[in-house]
């Protein structure tokens, strides 16, 4: 029935690109958005339809209570993709988005399908450790309150630790990068302390602060501090001398030279440090949570594993992936904003 619907609408709106049947089956992202190619347009509904069919076949002999969420999820994706296909001829913005996103979304749904075939379908992997997507989604739905709480808790630790680490790193980085004395005394300290992975400080952190939250924040801050400091120093130290000369002849004092010449010149480097620091902060967050705190995604994973509830472990991983990639994306957006002047100077 759904197949008929998909095929029925194809000829109607794809008449202009009828000469491209040879491209059928290829994943092509067309640059022009005048009309969508057949493979692009059909990719997501087709993939979802296949996934749904596989799911129905696989879950025949499982209790429906464990699989309903996944069925609903695939149904919603299918419904939305069909609605979008019908609406897109009249909505250029949606069409542009679809031409960019649909192949990748279709690939994602296909992966879910493959995952289900391997796990729930043919049971190629040992069972309690590798649940299928339906079970993971069901765990996500059933335990959302706990997961939500843990995500919020992790966000709090990460935010506090990252902010503290960045604030301290910018101060130390700017001082060491700009002032000769700060460099003489600070650089050796940085070279000795910095490379120690923050997670190696866990035993010490637990002694210093019996409250796991503060030690986690401290460890995250330490993990962020080193890369951000290093990159800030190199950014400040690499400021073109002629920018500083020009600023001096314009009447600039030291405050202007630091705040309005050296720091803007160092910002591209500082952002590299911020990205590196973000990566290490995720790692440190999860490690710190598994040792000393009573909530958070890292703690949740350890707890679920203790009860052999691997569906919950994967549910937490899914949340973590969404959580971390959202934060990454936000930082990219901030960078695009702040470094907009680089557009055209570098390969953006």
């Amino acid at each position: 029935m759904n197949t008929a619907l998909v095929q029925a609408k194809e000829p109607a709106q794809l008449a202009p690109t009828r000469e491209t049947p040879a491209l059928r089956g290829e994943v092509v992202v067309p640059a022009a958005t005048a009309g969508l190619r057949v493979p692009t347009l059909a990719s997501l509904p087709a993939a979802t339809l296949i996934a749904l069919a596989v799911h129905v076949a696989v879950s025949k002999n499982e209790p429906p209570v464990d699989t309903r969420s996944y069925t609903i999820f695939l149904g919603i994706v299918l419904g939305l993709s069909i609605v979008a296909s019908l609406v897109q001829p009249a909505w250029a913005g949606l069409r542009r988005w679809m031409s960019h996103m649909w192949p990748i979304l279709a690939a994602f749904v296909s992966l879910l399908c493959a995952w289900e075939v391997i796990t729930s379908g043919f049971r190629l992997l040992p069972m309690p450790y590798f649940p299928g997507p339906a079970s993971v989604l069901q765990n996500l739905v059933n335990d959302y309150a706990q997961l939500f709480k843990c995500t919020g808790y992790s966000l709090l630790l990460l935010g506090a630790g990252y902010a503290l680490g960045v604030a301290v790193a910018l101060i130390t980085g700017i001082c060491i990068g700009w002032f000769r004395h700060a460099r003489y005394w600070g650089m050796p300290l940085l070279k000795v302390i910095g490379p120690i992975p923050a997670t190696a400080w866990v035993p010490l952190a637990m002694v210093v602060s019996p409250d796991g939250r503060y030690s986690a924040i401290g460890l995250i801050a330490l993990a962020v501090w080193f890369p951000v400091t290093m990159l800030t120093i190199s950014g400040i130290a690499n400021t073109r001398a002629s920018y500083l000369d020009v600023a001096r002849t314009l009447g600039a004092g030291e405050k202007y030279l630091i705040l309005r010449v050296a720091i803007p010149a160092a910002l591209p480097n500082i952002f590299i440090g911020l990205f590196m620091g973000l990566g290490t902060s995720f790692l440190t967050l999860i490690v710190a949570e598994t040792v000393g705190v009573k909530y958070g995604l890292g703690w949740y994973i350890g707890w679920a594993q203790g009860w052999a509830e691997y569906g919950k472990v994967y549910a937490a991983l899914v949340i973590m992936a969404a959580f971390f990639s959202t934060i990454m994306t936000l930082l990219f957006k901030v960078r695009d904003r702040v470094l907009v002047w680089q557009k055209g100077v570098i390969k953006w």
Partner: protein
Amino acid sequence: MVGPNSTIVEGSSLRIVDVTKSFSNADNAESRTHALGGVSLSVAAGELVSLVGPSGCGKSTLLRLTAGLDSPDSGELWVGSEAITGPSAERGLVFQDPNLFPWLTVRRNIEAGLVARGVLREKRNEVDGFMRLVGLETFGAAYPHHLSGGMAQRVALARALINHPKVLLLDEPLGALDAFTRMRMQDEVLRLWEARGTTMLLVTHDIDEAIYMSDRIVLMTPRPGRIERTLTIDLPRPRQRNSTDFLRLRGEILGLLHFAGAQEALPA
């Protein structure tokens, strides 16, 4: 000597008295390169003087000393009645590379001097005037990398002029431009000079440029940098690049620099 159309003279006189400067060599701390060996020069308020000479004759060093970015080993530099002890907004400097701050828009680059001196609030109304003066009033929101070489150099000039410097130091400002843009920019700089009456010290490799623009040309020789000769250019303005007098002066200067003909071996 002041440009014929000058209405105001913002410039100050400049006096350089027996200045020497040497640098230690990077590879050998014992040996030193003598960039300047006893240079004296007086420039009147509102005068445009060119420094001409081969590479290594200390032209740029002299300009950096005047800007206050370096200090001399011995000798004195004076602007009006004040000794030069460090950089100051009174002495603007324009390099061959415009050195615009890439993170600031054209307008904010031009405003930079006002921000640096903490007078943006009072003087903000002057910014538009300077953008018009260099013909960039519609480019205020553009970032420097969108500008052509000539436009970028005009922004650099406006940025230096917004502080109303008493002396404007120009270190081969037009050296990187193509020949046509360069000639147009020479007229532009002359127009700014005549409008403001700023004292200008221009370092250039281009003898035509020096004759076309200067009241006086200072010929320098290298190792150590010294003033070889000073020529007063009293051709009427605006000057003709192909007049007989212009070409005669050109030949004379080339002869003094030993570039007049093939009989002289070129320095390595």
